[in-house]
């Protein structure tokens, strides 16, 4: 059984308030001791739900309910309740899908790639970011299912042995690649996230005062004993999973982009898509992490763990990825012109000046211009500005997918088939459904799971048991 080391050390060394490192700012401020960490994080889990949590939960459930009605109508009546037509066969459905998958990139990037790069600042945000990833991927996975005309046959996209003779899936289809890419990504992310949770569950279990908590967290912690050997194995597993997850961060959105890149539709058939989609995904994922973190740190009073330093670092990632995305947009245009392909040239001109010009310019403003504001240190260290811009970025990234999907389809090769897409309330409703689902899941996570990886954060407190600063 683990000995509550924290207390002993705290007692011994409380008097010594040593200075912080001269080399760099501390990653956790407020001179937290390891005990403080445990207390701060477990407070939410152990306490009663707060009023704001209840309100947020009510809102999420409400949204989920409205959305569920729209999903029901979609399944009952058919895809026709959406605004799609003979020319535009995908619109909000796949836009939302790509958007959610994109958001789902940040978590794994933070926990896996930054782990491999030994970026320790990730430690106080990776738990929540990974949770967000899991939920975003679940939301994303809704759409490939819901957008099917016959969702009750959805299992046919899995290569299952069947009684239909030699009937098999089509391995040429990027949609099938999506199925594999996303299910793999989801599985690895979930396992990675859960493994990381085990030591923290054990801490909560050890502190649990009632039987139910003890039993539940006991079961969740898989009998964690905190032994050195266990920790050693834990570290190795984390490293292996990080290694596994790293290529996935790049592969998932690459494969999602293949849905478009391998097609023949002008505006889709673009070889630049894989890197451009991955950069866009990280861009939107970081923005979403910021949105959620800023709310969480405020409501859960975690300002010392998620510091301005974190926000600034993430904003820098946003400038970089945002600029990559911006260059990609410009490159696309250049190539459309340079290729001499008439249909391609028209598709891009039509994006800018056609009936959906407003969507295009919304995308450009939100994705290319707005993140450039983060060059100013004042802005990138301003919480309110960051919060607003993080939302703006995600609006922009939604429009990016909308622009790619709808403006390319609505005017492609044969002018006779050109048509407009107008969304219906069910397009909006099913999107809301995923918001409700995401919100509900995230709130449940925030209440019942430790939102910050206590075990890891304890390792980066400057002098583990001393109050600093």
């Amino acid at each position, binding site marked *: 059984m683990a000995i509550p080391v924290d207390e002993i050390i705290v007692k011994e060394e409380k008097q010594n308030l040593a200075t912080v490192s001269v080399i760099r700012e501390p990653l956790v401020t407020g001179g937290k001791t390891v005990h403080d960490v445990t207390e701060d994080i477990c407070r939410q889990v152990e306490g009663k739900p707060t009023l704001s949590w209840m309100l947020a939960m009510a809102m999420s459930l409400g949204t989920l309910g409205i959305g569920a009605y729209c999903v029901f109508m979609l399944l009952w009546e058919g895809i*026709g309740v959406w*605004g799609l*037509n*003979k020319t535009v066969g995908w619109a909000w459905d796949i836009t939302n899908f790509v958007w959610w998958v994109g958001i789902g990139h940040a978590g794994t990037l933070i926990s896996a790639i930054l782990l491999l790069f030994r970026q320790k600042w990730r430690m106080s945000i990776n738990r929540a970011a990974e949770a967000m990833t899991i939920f975003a991927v679940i939301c994303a996975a809704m759409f490939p299912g819901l957008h099917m*005309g016959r969702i009750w046959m959805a299992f046919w996209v899995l290569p299952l042995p069947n009684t239909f003779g030699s009937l098999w899936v089509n391995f040429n289809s990027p949609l099938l690649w999506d199925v594999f890419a996303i299910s793999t990504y989801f599985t690895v992310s979930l396992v990675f996230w859960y493994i990381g949770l085990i030591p923290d569950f054990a801490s909560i279990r050890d502190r649990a005062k009632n039987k139910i908590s003890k039993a539940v967290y006991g079961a969740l912690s898989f009998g964690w004993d905190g032994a050195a050997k266990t920790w050693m194995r834990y570290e190795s597993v984390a490293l292996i999973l990080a290694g596994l997850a790293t290529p996935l961060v790049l592969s998932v959105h690459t494969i999602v982009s293949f849905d478009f890149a391998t097609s023949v539709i002008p505006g889709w058939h673009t070889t630049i898509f894989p890197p451009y989609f991955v950069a866009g995904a990280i861009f939107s994922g970081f923005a979403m992490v910021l949105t959620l973190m800023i709310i969480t740190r405020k409501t859960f009073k975690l300002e010392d763990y998620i510091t301005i330093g974190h926000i600034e670092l993430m904003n820098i990632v946003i400038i970089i990825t945002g600029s990559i995305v911006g260059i990609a947009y410009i490159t696309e245009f250049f190539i459309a012109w340079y290729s001499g392909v008439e249909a391609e040239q028209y598709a891009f001109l039509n994006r800018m000046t056609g009936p959906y010009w407003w969507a295009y310019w919304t995308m450009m403003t939100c994705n290319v211009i707005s993140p450039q504001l983060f060059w100013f240190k004042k802005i990138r260290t301003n919480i309110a500005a960051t919060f607003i811009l993080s939302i703006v970025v995600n609006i922009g990234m939604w429009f990016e997918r909308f622009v790619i999907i709808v403006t390319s389809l609505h005017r492609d090769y044969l002018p006779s*088939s050109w048509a407009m897409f107008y969304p219906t309330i069910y397009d909006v409703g099913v999107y809301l459904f995923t918001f409700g689902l995401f919100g509900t899941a995230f709130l449940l996570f925030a209440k019942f799971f430790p939102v910050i990886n206590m075990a890891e954060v304890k390792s980066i407190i400057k002098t583990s048991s001393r109050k600093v600063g």
Partner: protein
Amino acid sequence: MSDKRKQYWKGVEQLTNDPAFVKNAQSEFPEFLPISDNPEGGSSRRDFLKMMGFGIAAASLAACEAPVRKAIPYVNKPVDVDPGIPNYYASTYVQGGDYSSIVVRTREGRPIKIDGNALSPLTKGCSNSQVEAAVLSLYDNERLRNPKKGGKDISWADLDKEVTSKLDKIAAASHEIRIVSNTILSPSTKKILEVFKDKYPTTKHVVYDTASSEGILLANERSFGQKILPTYDFSKADVIVGFGADFLGTWIAPIQYAHQYTQTRKISDTKKTMSRHYQFEGNLSLTGANADYRTPLKPSDETKAVVALYQALDGKKSDIPRINNAASDLKKATGKSLVVSGSNDPNVQIVVNAINNKLGNYGNTIDLTTPVNYRQGNETEYSELLAEVKTGKIGAVIFYNCNPIYNTQSGADLAKALEKVALTVSTSDRPDETTKFVEYVAPDNHFLESWGDANPAKGHYSLSQPTITNIFDTRQAQASFMTWAGVIQFDYFEYLKSGWESTLAGIGLIWDQALHDGVFAIPENSEDVIFEADVSAAISAINKAYKGSDLELSIYQKVGIGDGTQSNNPWLQEMPDPITKATWDNYVTVSQAWANEKGITFIEGKSNMVNLTVNGITLKVPVVIQPGQAPGSIGLSVGYGRTSAGKVADGRGVNAYPLISKINGMESYAVISGVSVEVLEDIYQVAQTQTQQTYMGRETVIQETILSEYQKNPGAGRYHPHISTWQEESGETHPGALTLWKGHKYKNHHWGLAIDLNTCIGCSACHVACQAENNIPVVGREEVINRRDMHWLRIDRYYSSAPDEELDDDQKDMMDSRKLELVAANPEVTFQPMMCQHCNNAPCETVCPVAATTHSSEGLNQMTYNRCVGTRYCANNCPYKVRRFNWFKYHDNSKFENVNTAMNSDLGKMVLNPDVTVRSRGVMEKCSMCVQRIQDGKLRAKKANRPLKDGDIQVACASSCPTEGMVFGDMNDPNSKISKLLKINDTEEADYLITKEIGEPRAYHVLEEIGVKPNVTYLTKIRNKDEA
């Protein structure tokens, strides 16, 4: 007896009367039944599970409602009906004077498809959209099911008793009796009406037509002394000039004219010439859209143009555009030209006759010795009838299959005046505006349930035969007339047969053969005629009457709905108009200039509504801005605004018949004065299937040239895309040369379709034929607005973009791509039938995650409906956008029962082709190249133990095409029509064929540059224009 009966023992036990046997003998199962696995008896755990399983299964099965199967096998199989094998019957389509000899395909006793009858020397196997759609009208759930009196059911016996007694009373009082009908082509019906007249001598037969051509009849009477409609032969004409005559769409006999016309438009290595066609008209008609030169003129100017052409032939120059060119071209083609006018004014037609006479066309392109019997209506007699009804002089009116209360100018007056008539009867087979106002309705059979004959032109006869027994308690109108004339137990079939047998014997035919062929000809003599008419009097009458005004209205018939007789037919309602691509409505067509003046726009079918006032009648109508609409003119079609035709037609559009005017005493579809339009605030959206008007200058879609260029180089107008490569020395190659795919080897057949854009007139017969053949649902106006029409075959109609000189200053500053969207004021029009191109490198096939769309071993791209999960990826990735998704369940769905009548009632479903699946909600569908017909053809050849011949298989679109513009066949067969047409060189050396090498220089694939390698090939459009 019982003593003698032999005894058989069940076993030795019975013989020995074993006590154990005796004990069990009485129980149902004397031996131990191994129900239980437990040898000790009682139930084991296994038994319990078995029983529980059985119990649950039985209980849940009992809870399910067993589906009612309505397919009942024959108790006694009819001799000539084999389930699964279609029967074909020749018959005749006659509706409102339109005629076509047809072949009806029936399956298990149900007519399911109408095709043209190739044996007919008149229609030559051609049909049009209305003929194709007529089979659905047979299964209209709203047809009258039994005779009616005052809207209530009545028995035939009672109806006959009452009608006869009333007729007797009226005849006894010497009151007048009138039979009103449209033009009757049937000689035996005319004979029967004579019998009726003999019984009731005060009877007079009054004939009217919904679109009167009496002007031509009268003009010919004045010119040649014969009140006839001549036979026109467009196929012999090198120069054709039309004045407002939509002879390819709706004028007199469009099926025949379309066929003839395209014979002059076909181009091949052996015939490098084509006719030149000038059209002068107000609305952009189907005919105008096909003209080489089209001059938009408002109706009064159009009439003046006729006079101008007459004078131009004498050397007087005209300032009407292209009249002088037309005159000089006509003069060069003496005896090989044809001038026609759609005007109903005998004065205009006299001038037209004079022109044709001067050009020597009589005896060449116009045959007065073989007059046709269409449109024999007599306006004077009809207006006399109306006056007599109003004064109460008439005792009885019988409406024989006509609907004058709806489709005449004075319908409302007639409805009111009918109150004064003692006996009113209609024989309409379905409720209409007239049946609402008559006392008795004696419903006729549908023509597919009827016997009959027709005499469309002098010496040409055709027969009709029933293809199904009467669905309802209806009676053939001929039998009704005979019954009322006192002939008891009249059998029309016997009458018809006995009437014809002797005549047929005279030409060496027997009845069965004639009925089998459906058509026969009897040589009849005629005399020569001389042109003698006072042309100058006619010209002065024209000059007096056609003053012209600022705004003139051209009323017209739409190609699909026509005069509105079949407006309760959803296939025709949803058939996009070939020109406007609008469905389900009529609308005022206006010019762009007029719209600019009034400040109205037309975007995605949305525009302001207007109040159209014509001589005191005001109609609220939507607007469509129509390129090519003559300035100062507007157009409005008849056939809409039905009030009692049924749920499909009622309340759609407005009725334009009351707007018909009179000029020089004759009915005129052109209204040249008293027209005003007031723009309203209300916005209305017309449901169009195509909203982008131009082809954006994309040569990869439409490839065209002019005749002189073609004569120099048959490949003129072709667009050859090139792409860069390092593999060739020249640095570039054609897109087909680079591919990721191995290609396909088609060992047996390689199906292909060739479409000649120069022959396609856009008539949309193929469109309806495809809908009928392939059980394509109708989705209704709202869903068309949502751009979800389901048509597998559509006809893309493209206008030419506005030339620079037509642009205003704002437009000149636009980007090039925007400028291309602007339509020319008088555009050139191209029709392009578009269906699944059956690509050899099909983009749809690679993207389907479940392999629901795959490539066949015969080159078809095939769709497996029940494997489809509905991701729509294939439709997105289809460069031709021909895939159609089932957004809803269209069959057995109350939301679609008012529009998709063929799939929402037991009666409607009888029209469905049993060889084609009705698709469920959530699956993708598209043109299958009539794979059911391909399989059927192969099977028939196999059964006959012979190789498949070219022509054994015909796809629905190609077989319906009145212009033979579509050729379907096996591209692996070097002797097939398609191989010869495309000059296919089969390069067999490769293991896998990438594609067939096409030798015909005119042939091209749409979107060749993306390398999908379609099996549908188009031939360039060629216009007979002078070099610019």
